């Protein structure tokens, strides 16, 4: 029976992953800002087969609350088999260009709060000497593109942090999976004019994430075809890239 911690549990991708684990009879510790949404998610997972569901209201940006949260998880579950960090926001690039304070706030939500959580969790996982930490970053972190380089740089910071942390945790038998989704049909991407053929359903992405965690992948593009798209985008020469509006 898996013991699963999810931070940002009410995000679209996290909920879809939780349903897969619920079907396997997992025990959950779910963390999110809204108590009402957490309750709705908990009852859903129970009906779908979850063995136990515990809830904690927390804003991931409240870094002071992180250690207490990790302590509560360990107390409740004993140990953590899977920790999924899934919270995040998708700011409008143009708004961030107009307002440095907004930009810094978005960096806090998407980068520094995640790194703070990783630090707190890494120590726990290192001491328990097993398990997997999965972090949802983004294909946007692969290269700073003019359409969303603030979001992209936050995700890139997390990805680079993960690269180093993965090598540290490897020695303790703990895996760290950097999940880079492309376009996924969730509330976060609603209202964006996305190319329909490239938009994946959260259920599809969730199945890939759950399987990727299972086989201890390092970096996981979801769906897989994004690995190819990003390979091309990463290799566009700078002299051409700066003239583009990707």
């Amino acid at each position, binding site marked *: 029976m898996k013991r699963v911690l999810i931070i940002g549990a009410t995000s*679209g991708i996290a909920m879809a992953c939780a349903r897969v684990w619920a079907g396997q009879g997992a025990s959950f510790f779910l963390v999110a800002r809204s108590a*009402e*949404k957490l309750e*709705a*998610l908990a*009852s*859903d997972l*129970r*009906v*779908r*087969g979850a063995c136990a569901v515990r809830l904690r209201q927390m804003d991931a940006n409240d870094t002071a609350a992180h250690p207490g949260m990790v302590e509560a998880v360990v107390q409740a579950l004993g140990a953590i088999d899977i920790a999924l960090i899934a919270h995040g926001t998708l700011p409008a690039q143009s708004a961030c260009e107009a307002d440095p304070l907004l930009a810094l706030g978005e960096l806090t939500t998407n980068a520094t709060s995640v790194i703070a959580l990783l630090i707190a969790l890494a120590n726990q996982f290192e001491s328990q000497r097993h398990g997997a930490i999965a972090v949802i970053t983004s294909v946007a972190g692969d290269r700073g593109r003019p359409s969303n380089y603030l979001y992209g740089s936050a995700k890139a910071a997390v990805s680079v942090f993960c690269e180093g942390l993965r090598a540290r945790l490897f020695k303790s038998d703990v895996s760290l999976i950097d999940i880079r989704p492309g376009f996924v049909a969730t*509330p976060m991407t*609603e209202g964006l004019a996305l190319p*329909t053929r490239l938009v994946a359903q959260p259920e599809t992405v969730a199945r890939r994430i759950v399987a990727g965690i299972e086989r201890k992948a390092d970096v996981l593009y979801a769906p897989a075809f994004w690995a190819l798209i990003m390979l091309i985008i990463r290799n566009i020469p700078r002299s051409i890239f700066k003239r583009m509006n990707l």
Partner: protein
Amino acid sequence: MSAGGLLSWGNHPRFPQVPTACHWRGDLPAALSAARQESGTTLAYGAGMSYGDSCLAASDRVLHMRPLDRFLDADWSAGVLTAEAGVTLEDILAAAVPHGWFLSVTPGTKYATLGGAIANDVHGKNHHRRGTFGRHVRRFGLLRSDTGRATCSLHEQPELFSATIGGLGLTGLIEWAEIQLMPIRSSRIEAVTQRFDDLDEFFALSAELDERHEFCVSWIDCLAKGKATGRGIYTAGDFAAEGALAVERPRKLTVPFTPPVSLVNGLSLRAFNALYARRAPAARSRTTLGYDPFFYPLDAILKWNRIYGPKGFQQYQALIPEREARAGIHALLTAVAESGTGSFLAVLKRCGDMPSPGLLSFPMQGTSLALDFPQSHALEATLLPRLDAVVRETGGRIYPAKDAHMRGEDFRHSYPSWKQIERLRDPALMSRFWRRVTQ
């Protein structure tokens, strides 16, 4: 979702709907009042499995309820399940079957939502035993733009309860519902199949076997003329008394794109019907099969509606009352065979006399015939009016969930309760169907 907005299952009439996705119950009141302010009226849209225009908003602006798909509670000892309205019947089966429960009533697709099943008061192969879906709804939550939230059951808000079951989504947004499931001891079906050569044989078979089996349905070769009118295949079935309780997720094929013209024509129809008829042996035969191929054979091909091309298709489902059933069905089939239009899927089913709690419910005691036709001007100008005349003369009625053409007079005459629905309609809700047949 198609790039140009949401459509109904028949892809006709083609009025793309602009959706507002509803993810959390807490957000519904704001979504409803925003839609009302910006567009005048709106409508809840579930999985879009209704064929015609009953799931299309008059304003073409819908509240997309499909994302609202969480379970709220399950009592596996009593088979009582509570879920949000956007949960599909497939989701319900995936949760319930391993615990030994099945939907008390299921239509021919598992992709419909719980809210849609209530709003259309759907029925299935066991109508003669268990009536419509609405009979197994214990309670539901309704959100109205004028009076807010209410819980409705036979005892609380009984008027809204009966107006909402089969009420085409017009009496408020169904937020969640509590349903009674049916116990099963195996997820396998023991089926009996037998060919019949004409309508008299169908009615004889139905009279003999319907009452002995939980599920009964027939396929009819609607191209057959003269003496062969009404030949087809009768299928009955029951859940096996013992066996595994397994959720079935068979591999699906998808029709990958919409061909430029309909692939359904005289040639393909004749070939299909001839092949299908030969599939069943003439003598009575027994097989055991999974619930998925038994209840949902069409779901095995995702987006099969695309084969009708960009113009789409219409389903014509009419019910002829018991007394006139033999003559009425014969007249309908004769008209179809003479038109040469034909249909892949002609489905015949005798409905029982169990009343629905719903005011606007379609089934009543009699025989129901469902036919699919590629959309064309000729269809609307000649064949459908001829079929309508038969239905009118026999005192029958047409299923709103399938309809895209019914005359307003016919609707108002055959569903006299429409006035009560109109009186209880949420002023913020209006469908293209309702506007067409009542105004």
